[in-house]
């Protein structure tokens, strides 16, 4: 049931990853392997370490023990400067849209192009407008993030991440705080990225409709380890009482949720 004996040829692999914050363990020897081109959902209760897991991959956080491999390269010990090429290949869409308030949408999208691709300012701006058009935000290119709705900001943030044509996109709760229609549009976008561009998507979520609609596989995180990796169908059919409590949204059951 748990993934113990997978070959080490996975595109992204976490091996025995441990992380504690101020002495409080969050990940306790987590193992996970993600294949190229798949849509992998990481689900679990709040505070279980889902966002922490994906931030480790791109060096935004440092693991305490264990190893993280990406495309045959060990990445958990790279210094900040050596992470730049990695962050070109792996993009991240943050939970809050994290657009920079002092820049227009076009300038926001142009920033990674200028820094990672060394593009000139004018060329980067032109490319940014093209990217914004792809997420139907062309007419808002010269507006500031504060003037826009959450859904629009999220779309612009996705455009910024996709501007570098990443091979992997990490989504941190992409549909949280969005209305159901916008949420399903984001789902469709993630599915299209994987289907047409071959992008590997790692999605942290507790939005179960999204999970069952677009995931290729789902990793269920519980008590600092991957409790189960399965296809959405197998997850639904799993006899595991903890899984059943989570997907059923039951307030009482065998699940231990610290803090609540």
């Amino acid at each position, binding site marked *: 049931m748990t993934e113990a004996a997978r070959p080490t040829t996975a595109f992204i692999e976490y091996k025995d990853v441990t992380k504690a914050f101020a002495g409080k363990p969050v990940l306790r020897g987590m193992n996970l392997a993600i294949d190229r081109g798949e849509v992998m959902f990481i689900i679990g209760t709040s505070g279980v370490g889902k966002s922490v897991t994906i*931030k480790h991959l*791109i060096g*935004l956080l440092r693991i305490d023990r264990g190893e993280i491999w990406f495309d045959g390269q060990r990445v958990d010990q790279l210094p*900040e400067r050596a*992470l*730049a090429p990695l*962050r*070109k290949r792996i*993009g*991240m869409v*943050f*939970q*809050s849209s*994290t*657009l*920079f308030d002092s820049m227009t949408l076009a300038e926001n999208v142009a*920033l*990674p192009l*200028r*820094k*990672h691709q*060394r*593009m000139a*300012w004018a060329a980067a701006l032109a490319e940014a407008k093209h990217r914004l058009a792809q997420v139907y935000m062309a007419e808002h290119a010269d507006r500031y993030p504060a003037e826009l709705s959450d859904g629009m900001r999220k779309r612009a943030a996705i455009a*910024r*991440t996709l501007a570098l044509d990443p091979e992997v996109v990490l989504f941190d709760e992409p549909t949280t705080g969005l209305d159901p229609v916008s949420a399903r549009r984001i789902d469709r976008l993630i599915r299209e990225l994987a289907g047409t561009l071959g992008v590997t998507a790692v999605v942290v979520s507790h939005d179960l409709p999204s999970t069952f609609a677009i995931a290729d596989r789902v990793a269920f995180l519980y008590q600092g380890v991957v409790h189960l990796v399965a296809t959405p169908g197998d997850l639904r059919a799993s006899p595991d009482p903890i899984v059943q409590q989570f997907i059923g949204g039951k307030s009482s059951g065998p699940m231990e949720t610290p803090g609540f």
Partner: protein
Amino acid sequence: MTAPELPRARWVRHRIEGAGTIVVAAGRAALALWLVYVGTWAGIVRRISRRRAHGGPRGEVGRQLHAIGNRSVVFIVVTLGFIGMVMTYEACLQLARVTGDFSQVGSQLLRLIVSDFGPTLTALMLATRVGAGIAAEIGSMKVTEQIDALRMSGVLPIDYLIVPRFVASLVMTLALSVLGGLVMYAAGGLTAKYSFGVNPSLFFDVSKIRVRHVVLLIVKAVSYGAAIPVIAGFCGLRARGSSEGVGWATTAAVIGGSFAVIVLDFVISAAALLLTGGDL
């Protein structure tokens, strides 16, 4: 055979362990602060050497010069003007009681302003206004993951956020120190004239000022100007959690910045005294 630990011994051990933990944490924080400072200088070098290659944030230094400098002018003028009035009034009052000789008030006040009060009081004011602003802005970017987003965009947060503020603060702390000192001196002169009838030509006497006083003003203003944004930026980058973390960062920036100004004042003044053999 080992004797069981007495309650008092255990208490002492806990205290020593607690103190050790604090020392280690403080040492780590000091090292991190130092790295931010070194990183800022490295960022300035990178900025100068690579400017044409791909540029920094456009117009950011200008924006920061305006935010740190122009917007502090009224604040600095008002505070230092009042302090100049109070100091002169108190000095004249004491002199009137003792000797009644006001001939040295103006020249001694100017010497004090140039070598110490001008830059130090200006920097103390800037440490509150500018330090709080920088820490709150960078801290809220930290807790809303904008710093992480910058790193993902291939930008070093120090280059992008601290370097422009650092450059602007160096320039503006010096400029405002000179302005604040002038206002303080002028306000003192007016107080002396209208409260004690001191002749302005006697008060505004620059003959006691020597090059070493001006050098001291520049050294102090530049040191304070460097310390304030680095400490505030460091506190902002360490903000954790949500709005509470930003509040903590802002408080720490104001306390740390003011404290740094006072300590630097002492160190630089002591060094100047030693270098000049007490003839300051």
